[in-house]
C-alpha cells in the first residue's frame, strides 16, 4: 500500500495533469486492480486469459487509450467494460497505476 502511495506521489510530482484520487479510493482501486483485474491478467499482471499489463509491455501507451479500453472493454474478447463500476477519472488513475507499477520480482 505504501508503495502505491509513493508511486502516486512520484506521478503527481512528475506531471501535474494526473488523475487525483482520494487516498481511500486509491487504495480500493489498487486492491481492485490486483485482485479483480488479476483474476484474468494475473496478480502480478504478467498475463493469463487477459494479456500481460506490466509496465514493460504497456510501455509508451497513452494513459487515455488504456483508460478507454478499461471503460469500454474490448468487444469480442473476454475483456469486459468496467464503465458500470468506474468513473473516467478512476479508469485514468488505473491506467497510470499500470504504467508506473513496479514490476513484481
Amino acid at each position, binding site marked *: 500500500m505504501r508503495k502505491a502511495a509513493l508511486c502516486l506521489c512520484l506521478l503527481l510530482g512528475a506531471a501535474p495533469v494526473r488523475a487525483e484520487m482520494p487516498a481511500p479510493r486509491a487504495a480500493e482501486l489498487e*486492491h481492485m486492480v*490486483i*485482485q479483480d483485474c488479476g483474476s484474468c491478467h*494475473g*496478480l502480478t499482471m504478467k*498475463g*493469463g486469459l487477459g494479456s500481460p499489463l506490466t509496465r514493460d509491455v504497456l510501455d509508451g501507451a497513452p494513459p487515455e487509450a488504456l483508460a478507454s479500453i478499461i471503460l469500454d472493454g474490448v468487444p469480442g474478447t473476454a475483456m469486459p467494460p468496467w464503465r458500470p*463500476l468506474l468513473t473516467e477519472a478512476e479508469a485514468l488513475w488505473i491506467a497510470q497505476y499500470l504504467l508506473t507499477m513496479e514490476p513484481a520480482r
Partner: protein
Amino acid sequence: MKRLLAATAMALLPLTALSDTAIRATGDLGLVIERASGSLVLVDRSDRAALARIEGLGDLSHASMTYSPDERFAYVFARDGGLSKVDLLAGEVVARTVQAGNSIGGAISDDGRLVAVSNYTPGGVRVFDADTLELVADVPMAGKTIGLADLPGRRFAWAVWDTGEVFIGDFSGAEPAITSLGVAGANPFDAVVTEDASTYLVGLFGEKGVVAIDLWADPPVTTKFLKDYGKVEDDMPVYKMPHLQGWAFSEGQFVLPAVGRHELLWVDRATLQETGRTPVHGQPVFIIAQPASPYVWVNYATPLNGVVQVVDSRTHDVVKTLEPGRAMLHMEFAPRGAEVWMSSRDDNKVLIYDTRTFEKLAEIDATAPSGIFFTARAHQPGL
C-alpha cells in the same frame, strides 16, 4: 515438529502439534490457497483448525490443486507455471518445477502416476511423473489450454481457448497418443467431465452454448446445446470467468452458469433440453452440489461477490441467500455434506457453515484465501 513450527508464522492461529512420532491420517486435512502471498494454509476439517502455513508456491491467482491417491501429497498448479508437490504430513514443499511461463490448472491420472498441467504460455499440456515431477511428455498446442480433466486409462481431455478444438491425450503407452475431437465452438472457457466419465462438458464464451461430448461412444459424439439462452448483445459484462469444476449434476440435471447473465440454466441430462432457469444474484462463478442433498450453492463475480445462494434442484428456487463476508471466492463441502467451508478473500477468513442450519460454526484466519481443497478429492474422477 520443528520444521512445521518454523513454517508457521501464524501468530494468531492455534497450532495443533504434529509430532514426528505421532501417527497421523490425512483424510480430514485440506489446503487453502492464499492467493496474494503464494502460500497455503494446511487445515484440519474435524478440528476446524489451521495447522500450518506452507510458503513459496509462486503466483497463486487462479491456482488449483489435485491430490495423490494416498491423500498425502498435493500437486499445486500456480499461475506463474510453478508445479509444486506438497507433503501434508511434513507441511512442506517436497518438489517443485517451474514448467511453463503461465499456467491455469492441472489433473492427476486415474492411477495417480502422472500429473498433467494445462498451460497458457507456451500453450499446451505437459505431463510429469507424480513421484519426481520429471517431464514425461510435452504436448504443444496452438493456444491456451483449458478444462484439463482426467479420464480412465491414463488419459486426459482438454480444450484450446483460441481455436476451440478439443483433444484427448492417451499416456498409457510408450508414446503419447493425441486425438482431436474437433472444434467445439468459439472460446471454450472451461470444461469438466461428469463423475461417471461418460460426458465431457465444454462451456463456450465466444458464442452461446455448451458442448457435451459422449466419451462412452466410439468414436466420441459431440452435441451442442443451450445454443440460444439469450442474445449476446443483451449480455452483462462478465467480470470473472465462471468455473465448471464442481458443476453440479443433480436430480438428473446439469446446472450451468449462464455466461453474461445472472441466471442458472437447468438441463435434462438425458435429453440435453433446457428444463428451467433460476434468476440469481449475479454472474455465477461456482455452482457446487452439496453432497447428499438436493441443493446447489452458488457464488458470484465481482462486484456482487459478497453473496452466496442456495438453490433447490427440484424446484429451481433460491431457498437461502447468505452474506457471509466480502469477496466470497470458493466453497468446499465436507465430503458427506454436513458443513461447507467458504473463503472470504477480503475479510481474510475461511468461514465454516452448517449446511442444515446455515449457522456459522467457526472461522479460520487466512490471508486473501481463494480455493479450498479437501483431501477427499483424491478419490473423485475429474478432480
